[in-house]
């Protein structure tokens, strides 16, 4: 249990940092940025396109495509004609072959509602700061992904016994001498019945920025395991060796002190998402005009199940069980809500803490690592009640 003093001492969390922000660029307030199909998203970067969803959008179980976050390490494909597109199945298989979009559509379709989160979501709250896109809270979203099972595609190629990992190469355009964005997943995860080559999001073809015409969908895992604009699916006899498997996307095996580096041999790849929750309402920095306040949010647990969400309205001194939403699926977040009556007008800090079926819960502070991955610290917002 987190003590109140400890909790208050560490009020450097997500929302507090966000609400304390002071614009340093007048330009930012008057943006003409229009990105077709992507509305009201926070522009972390335009080139490469990195868009974050404002947390107040997280009031529905499924995140609409126009509000779904976008993460790119490179330039998106500049030319991609769905009619000419093919994905090649190669490597440790008996019969390498290629599939067009129409041929992909002939496989049995499977749907998975999955919470997709960038490994670096929450990086901005690491202390000391670490380099990279400074995602705050919204590099996450939940969608219904549909398409053929990866294992059906691999079965047709005739998987060899030597196949131990499956590599995804997308059509990302690589600038300069930057290493290509290629990653692999272990064969066990690749053959899971819920691992897809997804062609649809929420019943419509994938949006361009989310990987049209086809992307990997590795459910419950970090977004980087679900490569976009697939061009090649290659079965390997070992983990892919490349920058985005090592040194990128790795976590220290043991906790390290903030600011310290980890020895490369003392790290492991980031795979499944951790237990985490976010408050979508009330918004940090907002003023409530009534003492009756509905606290709402989302909670997810990667490959595990969210067991409960607790809400604190007194700086972590006491916690109260929130009600979980009815919509649920194995890899999807749960909505939660908690009705609270503020005792009087004043300033309050509201926090949420999720626990999963394996007993994992959220730490008070981000677990520091050199790349700022998997920040699942307790989320909190400061509000003012003026009733």
């Amino acid at each position, binding site marked *: 249990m987190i003590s109140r003093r400890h909790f208050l001492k560490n009020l450097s969390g997500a929302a507090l940092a966000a609400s304390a922000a002071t614009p340093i660029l007048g330009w930012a307030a008057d*943006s003409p*940025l229009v990105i077709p199909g992507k509305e009201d998203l926070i522009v972390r970067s335009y080139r490469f396109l990195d868009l974050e969803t*404002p947390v107040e959008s997280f009031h529905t179980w499924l995140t609409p495509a126009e509000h779904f976050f976008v993460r790119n390490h490179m330039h998106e494909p500049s030319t991609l004609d769905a009619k000419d597109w093919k994905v090649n199945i190669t490597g440790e298989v008996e019969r390498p072959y290629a599939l067009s979009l129409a041929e992909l559509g002939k496989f049995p379709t499977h749907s998975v509602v999955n919470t997709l989160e960038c490994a670096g979501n929450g990086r901005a709250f690491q202390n000391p700061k670490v380099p990279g896109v400074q995602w705050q809270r919204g590099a996450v979203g939940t969608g219904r992904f549909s398409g053929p099972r990866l294992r059906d595609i691999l079965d047709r190629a005739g998987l060899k016994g030597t196949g131990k990992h499956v590599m995804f190469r997308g059509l990302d355009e690589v600038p300069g*001498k930057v290493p290509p964005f290629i990653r692999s997943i272990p064969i066990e995860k690749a053959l899971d019945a819920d691992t897809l080559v997804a062609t649809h999001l929420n019943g419509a073809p994938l949006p361009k920025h989310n990987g049209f015409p086809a992307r990997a969908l590795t459910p419950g895992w970090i977004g980087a395991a679900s490569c976009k604009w697939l061009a090649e699916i290659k079965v390997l006899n070992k983990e892919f060796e490349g920058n985005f498997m090592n040194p990128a996307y790795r976590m220290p095996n043991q906790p390290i002190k903030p600011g310290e580096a980890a020895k490369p041999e003392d790290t492991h790849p980031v795979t499944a998402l951790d237990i985490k929750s976010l408050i979508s309402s009330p918004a940090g920095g907002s003023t409530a005009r009534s003492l009756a306040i509905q606290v709402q949010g989302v909670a997810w647990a990667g490959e595990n199940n969210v067991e409960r969400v607790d809400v604190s309205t007194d700086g972590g001194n006491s916690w109260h069980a929130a009600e979980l939403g009815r919509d649920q699926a194995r890899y999807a977040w749960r909505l939660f809500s908690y009705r609270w009556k503020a005792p009087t007008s004043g300033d309050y800090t509201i926090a949420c803490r999720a626990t999963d079926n394996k007993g994992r819960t959220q730490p008070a502070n981000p677990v520091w690592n050199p790349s700022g991955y998997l920040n699942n610290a307790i989320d909190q917002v400061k509000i003012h009640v003026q009733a």
Partner: protein
Amino acid sequence: MCRHRIAIGIAIGYCLVAALWAQSVPAPELPEGTTKAKATTACTECHDSRIILQQRLSKAAWTKEVDKMTKWGALVDAQDRDALIDYLSSNFGVDKPEYVPDRTRSAESKHKK
């Protein structure tokens, strides 16, 4: 042959339009300073300035970033390396205020504006 030329023409046209569209999206300028021009050339050839503006890093961390980006193709002359690190760490150091990004707008709201 004629069709081939038309196809090439369309492809070139598409690329030009895409390039012009990308250029038409404003990106904030890097801060003034003697190294501004070199930083702009070295960094924004591959990515826009927002990636830099949002960082809050120590000089040691900026040094690592500059060396990594140089390895990855950023054009930084050896004699400019230290000045670039100084420029980035003095403008985007750990004590600087947070960068506040803008948001995408729907085409409709742009027209209304």
